[in-house]
């Protein structure tokens, strides 16, 4: 190996009492793609944020081409030639500006940049970068009007426009179709040949097989294994990342009860096809797909927060047409939404109040709340689902992400329901909490139909009896989770209808 472009030595980081990184060592060689694998909560994103200057490490050191490297903020990292494409697309683009401005935005932050923006030269240069990336949208289009994949490509194109020495790509394909991914991979090949050191974060095996020179598996804040050479042992890497191999997860087959939620002719958007879906009592269904595949839209359609183009739904053979979450809750359809910080957590409330907020009428008489009843119910749930806390009166903000999520899920398990929808229930949740939640959901699932919407395949495999694949608004795969063909599943997720 050539002398490394970036070396990281025993980096540690904790947030409060929550240790996220427990001493990470790694080195990135120029002209090599190092893949960093790790399940949700392994600490990948934290590590990335330390390398690109967003967080400061608590301990350890970094050096860039032999020189000490200690970025205090994002600007310093970029100035040193360490460029990052962040996982969250919305952290990467400015919706109100046009494509050209977005591509060349960081030029404007440089001290020696001319005072006045030269719109025309900027557009010309942006056009070159866009063409090199195969971006077809006009550079004058406002980013807010573009689709997710285009936004993601713009975030990546901007990183390329900086001619980086070290390029970090944090799950760049999570919203790209296979064709768009191919474009990205070709570009990565080109940069690798130019001698750029690339850190590629993903746990998508098809991507990893395509680009990796070397794999570093992370688990629980530590490096669990390094795999390199001409024949990388991918299976071993996955095992190191998960602590067990993918096919190891065997869930007991469940008896399907009678159909609960029946959907027919569901057409989410006018130009998308219609599909049918039936969820039975007792089964846990995972709906998986890329961002923008329509799975969140399906969840909102069932919960009544977004009207689909056309649909027939029934619950227990009676027609069901929700126009508002209130209708849904009345019919026993509960949903724990994704992105709990924005959509679920009431920051000012303690655990008990956060848990009981949808069912306050059950805990009050003549509208007067009974704190005692609330707390009793909350305490039961805390014990059942295993929330780690001092008491039910702890502020929700004092809990770790995983425990907050447990509270959010418990909220909808307080009452019996017919259909439980969980949209990305494992987002920002560590492995331990993820297991607890999955187990609890499965243990309580007998009477109801449970549908979990997840974008990560391993999460789907870990918890569901049936895995359904959505792609561009259609169901493209329906698997029972017994001897499931993982590579077929993955190709159904990423294949593009156009291709």
């Amino acid at each position, binding site marked *: 190996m050539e002398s490394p472009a970036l070396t990281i030595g025993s980096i540690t980081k904790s947030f409060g009492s929550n240790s996220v990184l427990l001493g990470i060592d790694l080195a990135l060689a120029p002209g090599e793609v190092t893949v960093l694998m790790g399940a949700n909560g392994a600490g990948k994103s934290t590590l990335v944020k330390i390398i690109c200057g967003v967080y400061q490490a608590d301990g350890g050191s970094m050096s860039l081409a032999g020189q000490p490297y200690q970025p205090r*903020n994002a600007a310093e990292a*970029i100035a040193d030639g360490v460029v*990052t494409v*962040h996982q969250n697309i919305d952290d990467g*683009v400015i919706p109100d500006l046009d494509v050209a401005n977005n591509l060349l*935005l960081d030029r404007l*932050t440089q001290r020696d940049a001319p005072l006045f*923006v030269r719109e025309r030269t900027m557009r010309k240069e942006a056009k070159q970068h866009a063409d090199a990336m195969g971006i077809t949208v006009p550079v004058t289009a406002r980013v807010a*009007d573009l689709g997710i994949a285009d936004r993601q490509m713009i975030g990546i194109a901007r990183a390329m426009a900086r001619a980086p020495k070290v390029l970090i790509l944090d799950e760049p394909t999570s919203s790209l179709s296979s064709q768009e991914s191919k474009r990205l991979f070709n570009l990565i090949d080109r940069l690798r040949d130019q001698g750029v050191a690339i850190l590629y974060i993903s746990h998508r095996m098809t991507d990893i097989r395509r680009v990796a020179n070397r794999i570093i598996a992370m688990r629980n804040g530590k490096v669990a294994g390094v795999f390199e050479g001409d024949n990388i042992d991918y299976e071993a890497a996955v095992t190191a990342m998960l602590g067990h191999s993918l096919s190891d997860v065997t869930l007991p087959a469940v008896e399907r009860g009678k159909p609960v939620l029946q959907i027919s002719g569901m057409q989410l958007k006018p130009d998308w096809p219609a599909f049918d879906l039936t969820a039975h009592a007792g089964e846990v269904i995972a709906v998986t797909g890329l961002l923008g595949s329509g799975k969140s839209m399906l969840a909102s359609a069932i919960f009544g927060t977004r009207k689909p183009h056309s649909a027939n739904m029934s619950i227990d053979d009676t027609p069901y047409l929700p126009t508002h979450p209130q209708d849904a809750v009345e019919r026993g359809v509960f949903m724990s939404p994704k992105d709990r910080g924005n959509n679920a957590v009431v920051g000012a409330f303690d655990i008990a109040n956060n848990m009981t907020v949808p069912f306050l009428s059950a805990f009050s008489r003549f509208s007067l709340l009974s704190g005692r009843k609330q707390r009793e119910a909350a305490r039961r749930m805390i014990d059942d689902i295993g929330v780690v806390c001092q008491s039910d009166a702890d502020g929700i903000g004092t809990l770790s992400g995983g425990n907050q999520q447990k509270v959010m899920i418990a909220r909808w398990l307080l009452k019996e329901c017919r259909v439980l929808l969980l949209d990305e229930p494992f987002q920002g949740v560590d492995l331990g909490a993820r297991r607890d939640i999955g187990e609890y959901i499965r243990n309580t699932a007998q009477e109801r139909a449970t549908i979990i919407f997840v974008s990560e395949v391993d999460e789907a495999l870990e918890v569901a009896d049936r895995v359904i694949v959505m792609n561009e608004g259609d169901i493209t795969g329906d698997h029972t989770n017994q001897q499931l063909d993982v590579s077929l599943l993955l190709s159904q997720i990423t294949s593009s209808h156009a291709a």
Partner: protein
Amino acid sequence: MTKTRNDRLLNFAIRYGFLLLMIGLIIYFSLFAPGFATPRSAVFILQSVALTGILALGVTCTLVVDGFDLSIGSVATSALMLSAYSMVILEQSALVAVLLCLFMGAFIGLINGLLIVKCRVPDLLATLGMMFLLIGLQRIPTQGNSIATGMSLPDGNVAEGTFSAAFLWIGRHRFDVVLERLVPVPVIVFIVLAVVIWAFLGLTRHGRLMYAIGSNERAATLVGTNVNRYKIVAYMISGVMASIGGILLAARLGRGDIASGNNLLLDSVAAALIGFAVLGASRPNAFGTAIGALFVGILLQGLTMMNAPYYTQDFVKGAVLVLALVFTFYLAWRKGNSSEA
């Protein structure tokens, strides 16, 4: 087919609706209000909107970084009192008075900015607090009295200083353009500042980054923008603009009147918000702000000349503001929806 036609109509309405409405108003008043379509009347309108317009340009800068400055009205009246105090009681020159006021505006903007970015006080609350503080502060040196030459001071003496002629020139001089003594200095100042702020926000890299901060602060940070510094700068611009407004007001009045400038805050915020609707920008912009201020001015002048009573003015302003906000938000939302479907 009809859908695309509807879309085009909607786009047209969003872009040019407000400007067409303004041109329509001008034509209507020209036809039905005698004397409306004259240079003197045009200058009168400009003069009536110059002060609020200047303050509104400052508010625009804070709106661009997704902030808000409620203290501008009180910064302007503080500048009014400070200029009077420095000339009448401290007997300083016009130049000193102007510099003092500008410095005060920048300083208050700096404090606002620091409160918001360093102490993490939400923008509305920080500037609301500053507003109260300034309203109180400007009354302390004179024990709540207005300042005028010849007023008696607490120590028994009489204030000897006067508003210098040079200072009054700023507020009262009129340049000869077409007609003799037509265009007053504040109008020139307003137009120059509007062009400067427009160029700053629209053409320079600093302005572009400020828009980026307002649209997505995280993303702006991650490309290496010094978000905090730009936010502070925005509040400093706002403070300086407000103090310029206060200087012009003092120069026009010729005394430190404790009771004037009450409407400045609301009028200028309204102008900046109306500006969102101009050319379908859907975001704060200097051109829109200037047009917004003018729109209100034209409407009020026209109505006054058609003998509408003075007490209907605030109602009319409110109605225009609500209409403009509907233009901005409802139509833009419709547009977003139709492009998504």
